[in-house]
């Protein structure tokens, strides 16, 4: 199995409450991975005229708090004797974050978790979803005040290419940090089909076969793998399982193409992000 070394961590944050300790977690993670940290903050591009609202220097007023946050982050790192470079950009946040990640050759992007409803996401924009979809590397989403640990890693296995890739990443992390992996297969069957005889048991059998293959991969790396097959909505199952077992990290696979209905109903990742109690790693 191919190892995935992380040399550069890109922590993208704004001055909201959810992102208050993001750069601190980035430093802690970088310290354990011996990686360099780049903090990036993006002022949303504004082309309107704020003078009519009696706001002078609108750009300055939008930029100043973000630059202050970056300065504070740099001071914090310096006072700990660590190094952190900071970048400030103006434009569309997701595009700028991806551009910086490409320029700097980032191996991991850290983002805060905004616990929004689907309606809020539709109205306020889906920066996280777009960075996940178009970004060049893995994305780690950290909820407010969550701690990055790799003791208990939950991975959602569905048999797809993306989920297998996520499984590999989970095993890689668990073998590096000495953790255990929980592999969860969710049989997502529509209600009309679920009522038919044998459909559920067939789906469960298929799930156990996929999980068994994953266990053999874990055995090769001497990583303990705990398995479970459940039937319900994938996001609800993942969150319930994470809460029940005290999971430290959820690893999910990312598909590169987005379907139209994801925009209106949200993807599994977005639903998990909005309710998860622990960080979520989206493997690419």
């Amino acid at each position, binding site marked *: 199995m191919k190892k995935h070394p992380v040399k550069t961590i890109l922590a993208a944050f704004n001055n909201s*409450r959810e992102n*208050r*300790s993001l750069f601190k*977690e980035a430093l802690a993670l970088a*310290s354990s991975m011996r990686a360099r940290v780049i903090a990036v903050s993006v002022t949303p591009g504004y082309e309107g005229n704020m003078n009519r609202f009696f706001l002078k220097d609108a750009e300055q007023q939008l930029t100043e708090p973000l630059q202050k946050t970056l300065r504070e982050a740099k001071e914090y790192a310096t006072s*700990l*004797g660590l190094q952190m470079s900071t970048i400030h950009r103006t434009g569309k946040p997701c595009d700028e974050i991806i551009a910086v990640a490409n320029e700097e050759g980032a191996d991991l992007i850290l983002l805060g978790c905004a616990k929004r409803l689907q309606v809020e996401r539709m109205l306020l924009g889906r920066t996280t979803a777009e960075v996940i979809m178009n970004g060049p590397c893995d994305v780690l989403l950290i909820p407010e*005040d969550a*701690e990055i640990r790799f003791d208990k890693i939950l991975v959602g296995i569905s048999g797809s290419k993306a989920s297998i890739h996520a499984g590999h990443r989970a095993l890689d992390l668990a073998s590096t940090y000495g953790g255990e992996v929980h592999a969860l297969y969710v049989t997502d069957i529509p209600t009309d089909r679920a009522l038919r005889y044998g459909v559920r048991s067939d789906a469960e059998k298929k799930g156990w076969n996929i999980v068994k293959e994953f266990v053999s991969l874990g055995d090769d790396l001497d990583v303990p793998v705990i398995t479970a097959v459940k039937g319900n909505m994938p996001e609800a199952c993942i969150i319930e399982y994470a809460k029940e077992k005290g999971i430290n990290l959820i690893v999910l696979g990312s598909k590169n193409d987005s379907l139209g209905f994801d925009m209106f109903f949200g993807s599994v990742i977005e639903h998990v992000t909005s309710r998860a109690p622990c960080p979520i790693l989206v493997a690419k």
Partner: protein
Amino acid sequence: MVRKLQRLMQNIQMINNTRERTMAEKADEKSIELAGYYANRIEDGLASQNYAKKHVILLVTRNGHLTEAVMTYGLNVAERLNLRLLVAYVNTMPLLCDGGVRNNRFAEAVQDSIVDLRTRARAKGVLVDYVRESGRVAKVVSRLCRTLQSIAFIIVDKDIKIEDVIVKASVPVFNVYSNEIRRQGLKSSH
């Protein structure tokens, strides 16, 4: 005429030679400058690495200032063991709705405390750094332990439950009680 041409040719050659020399000299100067710049950068990097490698005593307080007992003890131990001090001022109520009064007072108290500590540390030749944190003390300690591999041990100030910190810390944790508090404790136990 031929002689004139020969002289002219010689002059042109001389000029070219001097030009080449000046170009070479300039290139040398540039390379020396660059070498100096990179040497400085390497030195800075090594200095910061050495600085980061030097072990740290972490002092943790949830008030805006360190108590006298902890400050004195921390400085004495750091001097004796040749370690540097890192003080974490933890604001445990960052979201208190008081119009930012508490946060401002906390920041002022931190400034006063650090100036006082640095003045004392200078006399003893101890390096002092500080970080302003917010949230739960145990979480802050856990994060700092993960971030800094060079923490030797932790000293917590009064008003912090040592049991909470011990659970999250990866290094030994101590508290310093002043004689007064100890006497009070002894009195209450009798």
